[in-house]
């Protein structure tokens, strides 16, 4: 019995498997790829991966459920994560997260009725010098306020979200971002700043000190 999901490109999946010396290593990018097509990890996607890797469905599920970025229910076209780890929380992340829940009328891990925006509180996203940080489809929105975060989700619901602070010129969809995480190149690497102002702080100071 074949477990091929006709919505998935077997060719793309074969190319992902071919990256690795041992094919089981491809399980994570394959799961990202399933999310790029279906928007979340579907049962048929799990079965298809299991067939390709010649392992049991349960083994694929066991891996998929370990990692928080794999979702098992449809998620928003724009998935918004508010960092509420200590530093961002203290700097305003808690206030932003509770304001967004109220503004959107959803709870943690909820999706708006129009399917446009989902919300999640996330852990440290390696941008503490830009706190408080909000991620949308895992793109950086730095130094957020309650107002700017509301503008972000309102824009997302209207289909024209503001561009990330450090990212491409427009915010890609959750499916499109998932393809990038599957290792597929979307050609947008050249867009956006090379560094934000906090990243350059020490360098700029060093230049000033040199000049003196």
């Amino acid at each position: 019995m074949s477990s091929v999901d006709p919505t998935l490109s077997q060719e793309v999946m074969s190319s992902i498997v071919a990256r690795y010396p041992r094919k089981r290593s491809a399980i994570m990018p394959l799961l990202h790829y399933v999310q790029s097509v279906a928007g979340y990890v579907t049962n048929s996607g799990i079965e298809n991966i299991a067939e390709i890797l010649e392992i049991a469905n349960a083994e694929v599920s066991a891996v998929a459920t370990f990692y928080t970025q794999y979702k098992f229910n449809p998620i928003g076209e724009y998935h918004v994560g508010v960092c509420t780890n200590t530093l961002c929380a203290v700097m305003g992340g808690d206030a932003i997260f509770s304001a967004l829940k109220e503004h959107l009328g959803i709870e943690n891990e909820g999706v708006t009725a129009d399917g446009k925006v989902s919300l999640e509180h996330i852990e440290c996203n390696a941008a503490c010098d830009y706190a408080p940080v909000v991620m949308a489809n895992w793109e950086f929105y730095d130094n957020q306020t309650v107002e700017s975060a509301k503008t972000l989700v309102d824009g997302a619901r209207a289909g024209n979200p503001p561009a990330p602070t450090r990212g491409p010129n427009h915010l890609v969809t959750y499916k499109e971002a998932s393809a990038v995480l599957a290792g597929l190149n979307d050609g947008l690497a050249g867009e956006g700043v090379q560094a934000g102002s906090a990243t350059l702080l020490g360098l700029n100071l060093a230049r000033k000190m040199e000049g003196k």
Partner: protein
Amino acid sequence: MATLTPILSAHWDEKDSFTLEGYKRHGGYKAAEKALAMDPDAVIQIIKDSGLRGRGGAGFPTGMKWGFIPQGDNKDHYLVVNADESEPGTCKDTPLLMANPHVLIEGCIIACHAIRAKQAFIYIRGEVTHVVRRVNQAITDAYAAGLLGKGVDIVLHIGAGAYICGEETALLDSLEGFRGQPRLRPPFPAIAGLYAKPTVVNNVESIASVPAIIANGAEWYQAMGTEKSKGATLYSLSGHVNNPGQFEAPLGITLREILELAGGVRTGHKLKFWTPGGSSTPLFTDAHLDIPLDYEGVSAAGSMLGTKALQIFDETTCVVRAVLRWTEFYKHESCGKCTPCREGTWWLVQILRDLEAGVGTEADLEKLLDLCDNIMGRSFCALGDGATSPITSSIKYFRDEYIAHLTQGGCPFDPVQSTLFVGASK
């Protein structure tokens, strides 16, 4: 006055710093050319002589790690770069890769030559889409330019949200396609790592530091820093400061010096507590401003240099709230493999929640310390140990504040006062 030494960050202010052209403009890939013409053991010796130590937290000498790879064993060897930057407060590898992915690729080429590996893997956390794009494009461009594919191949592997995968053996299991849980050691990765083959696992900043060392020599590098902590490194300043950001300086700089350069603690406020190297490193206070931020100095003062993630909190911050939130993080990220961490972090959260809400008793503080004592050194990997750091250090320095929650029946702090946008009209 303290000096800054932009090396990794030297050209980050150029718009095309992340491109092959931008990297080559400043001598990019010349160090690889030089290294490839050398005997691999000579490359290892330069890195040993330079004094470079692991920048991912543990500070293990990089050259020594490379030297552990058995030679002439007729096995495949692997280099695995740990770009799973997830330790709370740590934010150096992410901007580095966004601004200059090619320095990592060049470092990989050199490291692979040294350890006789043909294959490198870069494991990046999955929550940084644009960093993934930049690294993926850089790898593609390096292949097109013939820099990769002629002796060294690089595979980009993207994680999916699991702090534990920053632990090197959990990372290897994850890369092999399993749940990311740490392995028993020995055998160490140098003997049986990825696919049970000899493997070096290095942090992004460690590998990215290699090209400059090869280009300028070991003496140049070890002229910077302190006696046992050589070279320069990225310090990441965040939190209640006027100017947060990345500062590349010789090891041994102090927080006081960095704060002076950065314009100090948030105006009108004073330093209360800080982490020297992420949330897993015991907290410091304003009594530790002059500790040299090198591996030995921080360790002697009772903490760890870790990832040099300087998270600054001023007097508006409730330490109990801060510690509870970190503890919730460790509970969430505990992989569940070992009992002390899986059960221990769960209990730590329960007790801390009560304490923050002011419904616990003073005996709960002793219970917390007792639990920490049973997790520290008894869990499978460093995640459990790290979970105890904020708790034990905060009780040491701020016991009165915990007790104030109990006597007042709740948190005495107004969380609005500690936000970035306090005073703004929402």
